[in-house]
């Protein structure tokens, strides 16, 4: 028989033997195409996430009573999703979930790729294979993506769906300060140089925590320019601020190193030491800057998304 709800047509075939009270239902969902004019939210209301492009097809068997042998096959092609003010495009995956003692798990590795994801800062060419196991560990294995001119990778990013704490390590290589300054449209600020980061993460019921992450600039170092942010009145009777303003006007560093902390509230704390020189302070002497930098990531991402037309950015992605 058919179950029809908007574009979703579900053909199903019911087999139920009353004697042993065992049964199976085979169902298949022929490919459904979504578009901005006909998104998922038109048919299925109340989901926090919407599918606005691409094609989904699914098939599976549900068997009872013990549900052993139940399986769900999901094929996503070129899907685009919107979640609050973030979006992802070009999602391709062939996923197979099987029921194993009451839990949905993935049999063998399920490769998944996402062309781009934008929550304020763009993440591109995302590749990983998806694992969901009996202890409800959702694992993104062999994770790789391009970010700010560099690469972000991890052997395994683990998130436990039943609120158990899990540890993962994320590595970032060649992250360009110039690209970061450009994308965050920061006024008064210019930067050159590339960073490597090692980020030990703990995922848990209250979110993501990072302790003792490590940051280091690649040789030969780079440049920081922070100018025009201090008004004359501020500088007037403040020698320390004058020194800082001069130092940051054109600071060349050969060493940048330090560590980072990140808490579920979204506050990122960087404790960095930079060693370099600023000709406007002293040509012959090194200038060491001990920088404590605090930045709330969700607030930053919100501001970035708020300062541009996200719908237009999504359309541009879809037209590619």
């Amino acid at each position: 028989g058919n179950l029809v709800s908007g574009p979703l047509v579900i053909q199903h075939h019911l087999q139920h033997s009353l004697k042993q009270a065992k049964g199976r239902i085979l169902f298949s969902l022929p490919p459904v195409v979504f578009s901005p004019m006909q998104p998922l939210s038109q048919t299925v209301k109340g989901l926090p996430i919407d599918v606005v492009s691409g094609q989904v097809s699914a098939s599976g068997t549900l068997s009872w009573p013990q549900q052993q042998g139940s399986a769900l096959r999901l094929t996503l092609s070129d899907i685009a999703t919107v979640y609050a003010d973030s979006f992802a495009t070009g999602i391709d995956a062939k996923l197979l979930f099987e029921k194993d003692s009451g839990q949905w798990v993935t049999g063998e590795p399920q490769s998944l790729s996402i062309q781009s994801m934008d929550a304020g800062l763009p993440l591109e060419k995302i590749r990983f294979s998806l694992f969901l196991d009996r202890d409800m560990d959702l694992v993104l294995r062999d994770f790789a993506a391009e970010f700010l001119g560099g690469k972000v990778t991890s052997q395994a990013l683990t998130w436990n769906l039943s609120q158990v704490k899990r540890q993962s390590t994320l590595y970032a290589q060649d992250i360009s300060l110039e690209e970061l300054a450009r994308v965050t449209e920061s006024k008064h600020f210019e930067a050159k140089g590339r960073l490597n980061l090692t980020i030990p993460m703990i995922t848990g019921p209250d979110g993501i925590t990072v302790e003792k992450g490590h940051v280091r600039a690649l040789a030969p170092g780079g440049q920081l320019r922070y100018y025009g942010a201090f008004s004359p009145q501020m500088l007037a009777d403040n020698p320390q601020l004058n020194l800082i303003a001069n130092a940051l006007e054109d600071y060349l560093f050969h060493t940048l190193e330090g560590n980072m902390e990140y808490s579920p509230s979204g506050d990122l704390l960087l404790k960095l030491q930079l060693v370099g020189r600023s000709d406007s302070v002293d040509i012959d002497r090194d200038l060491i800057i001990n920088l404590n930098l605090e930045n709330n990531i969700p607030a930053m991402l919100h501001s970035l998304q708020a300062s541009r037309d996200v719908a237009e950015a999504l359309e541009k992605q879809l037209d590619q």
Partner: protein
Amino acid sequence: CTPTVAVKAPTEPITVNLNVKIEHEIRVKVDRDLDNLFEGKDGIF
């Protein structure tokens, strides 16, 4: 001979300690607007 004292410019590095908290402009303005709203007398907060 007379000891010659060469006045050499100090060479040890200058150290600057800098604490920076990035406040996101949109967030600050919205926060102020909400605070004013909450102080309002119309009893909806």
